[in-house]
């Protein structure tokens, strides 16, 4: 097996708050092979966005290792870090705040090329920028258009083109289609999948939308309160969800078809517990209908329950 493109080992990101340490990302480990997509799902407060930003070093990690192409990027010098920026990029959720309102489409996409001195002449920069625009489906006439003159879908395409400008290998997609209308979502998702195939990109796809994540991911990781509680190939996760939270999540999705929504099914009760100074043991236990006293006493680790299928549930660990 070749070396995975990205590997996280025991990654932690804590924030200091007046009430204590907020465990946003707590001891996460996983790998992503080149050319694949790892989907990260979870609800608000699970830490998935923080995870994405920590991997890109937009937030300093508290501890752990992030290995990109085999090397720990957390120990890089300033120069090496700058070089790395070209290989790891990000696409944001909000198409309205992710573009500078005072810059045209052309200026936004060409700026990274200028700053990194990728090309010598203006003509080359211009050509490359137009190429990038075409790749995301924007014709040349969009060059001098400003963000406020475009709809959300087109702005998102500009964001994608900008992320592609430096020829990255790895892109963190932080809810890139959540703010878009359904029919536009489909357009942008198709685009992202096409680009991935053409350019051999690797994605970390963060979303709360389970239907979308199944569509685009090879593997899916489920997060809850900063911990990764299940990791499996996409099909497998939906067919055989192991963790009670994953099951609850899947059950909660409203199906757009008749006779498939069991209206009286058990829905998940209670609220998220606090990520500040969390208690030991399984963090889902307070809401889990299968929970026993031992769940709050056992530390959870991802253990393999089937080929490539990992789950961090004390009950499963114990059996």
């Amino acid at each position, binding site marked *: 097996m070749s070396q995975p493109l990205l590997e996280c080992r025991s990654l932690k990101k804590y924030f200091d708050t007046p009430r204590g340490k907020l465990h946003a990302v707590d001891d996460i480990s996983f790998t992503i092979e080149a050319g694949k997509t790892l989907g990260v799902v979870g*609800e*608000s407060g699970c830490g998935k966005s923080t995870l994405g930003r920590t991997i890109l070093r937009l937030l300093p990690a508290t501890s752990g290792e992030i290995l990109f192409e085999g090397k720990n990027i957390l120990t890089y010098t300033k120069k090496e870090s700058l070089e790395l920026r070209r290989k790891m990029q990000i696409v944001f959720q909000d198409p309205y705040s992710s573009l500078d309102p005072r810059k045209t489409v052309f200026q936004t996409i060409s700026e990274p090329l200028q700053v990194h001195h990728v090309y010598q002449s203006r003509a080359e920069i211009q050509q490359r920028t137009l190429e990038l625009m075409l790749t995301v489906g924007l014709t040349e006439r969009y060059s001098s258009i400003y963000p406020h003159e475009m*709809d959300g*879908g087109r702005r998102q395409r500009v964001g994608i083109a900008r992320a592609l400008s430096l020829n990255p290998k790895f892109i963190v997609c932080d809810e890139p289609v959540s703010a878009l*209308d*359904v*029919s*536009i*979502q*489909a*357009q942008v*998702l*198709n685009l992202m*999948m096409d680009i991935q195939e053409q350019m051999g990109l690797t994605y970390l796809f963060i979303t*709360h939308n*389970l*239907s*979308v994540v*199944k*569509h685009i991911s090879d593997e899916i990781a489920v997060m809850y309160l900063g911990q990764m509680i299940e990791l499996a190939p996409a*099909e497998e996760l*939906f067919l055989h969800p192991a963790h009670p939270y994953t099951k*609850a*999540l*899947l*059950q*909660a*999705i*409203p*199906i*757009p*078809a*008749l006779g*498939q*929504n069991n*209206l009286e099914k058990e*829905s*998940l*009760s209670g*609220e*998220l517990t606090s990520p500040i100074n969390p208690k030991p043991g399984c963090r889902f236990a307070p809401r889990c209908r299968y929970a026993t006293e031992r769940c709050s006493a056992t530390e959870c680790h991802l253990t393999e329950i089937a080929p490539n299928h990992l789950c961090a549930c004390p009950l499963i660990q114990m059996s």
Partner: protein
Amino acid sequence: MNNQGSLLEIKNLTVQYVTDGECVHAVNNISLTIPQGKTLGLVGETGAGKTTTALSILKLLPKFTGRVIGGKILFGGEDLLEKSEEQMGKIRGGRISMIFQDPMTSLNPVLTVHNQIAEVLKLHSTHLKRESLDGEIGRLLEMVGIPSSRMFEYPHQFSGGMKQRVVIAIAIACSPELLIADEPTTALDVTIQAQVLKMMRKLRQELGSSMLMITHDLGVVANICDYVAIMYAGEIVEYGTLEDIFDPDCKHHPYTVGLFRSIPNIHVNSRRLQPIDGLMPEPTALPDGCKFHPRCPHCTDACRSGEIQTVSYGTHGIKCILYRSEELVGNTFHRTEDAL
């Protein structure tokens, strides 16, 4: 559509927003009906005109720019558009309530939950005495799944899902006949959404209210609605019962077909989604003829101009020239004569 037992009837409503230079055709000659005790799902994407429709019912359009150009909104037989502001004040919150999308900004951060519910109770139920007020508020909170002991807390002490429940409690406080919910669960996590939808179904049954549920999520529609109307560029392009719309064997408006195909369905394994080409037209420059024709794979010359008639059979109607009325009957589900 038939009128028997209908609580709300919108007839030929046209609404525009006028600013200097521009005229936004938000709603164009729509008609819909909500029967007593039933839920109508108003489905569409951004800019389709759903929120404008809801605001028109409550006469809450922006004062200087929003104009109702024509039509009637009959509520229990009376035209709401003819009513004075004072009369509408009695109806809002009392007979018709609205729930907005974002629970974070719908509540007043400086008033306790108790005071916000009390406000609406005092306004519409003048016979309620002081002592029974607390009891009534407690009962309402329990109905939406919040312990009544929390009634003196402030909005910021509740999570998103709980805030939305408080908003719902305020909306049902006076047992309204019609509840308008504008994307009430869009901002919520999926497990919280499931909880809130379950609660809304239960409430609807207990109160016997009708509901206008505005959403873009077809899953939510399947979960809670009895009837569906699909909006595009200010028009209703398809309407029917839940069975009519979700029946895959039935004929549908090309936009409806496109919508269903754009959604990644977890039970279907397809590599590529099939999005609808192009974008919804600018409401300031709507195309002639069928508003959907520039994006429609079945577009013909007849679609490009003129008024497109709605073809209907029983409860199901489509604003498209593609099909004859008889083709609108589905195979799988039995149609009752309880017309819309």
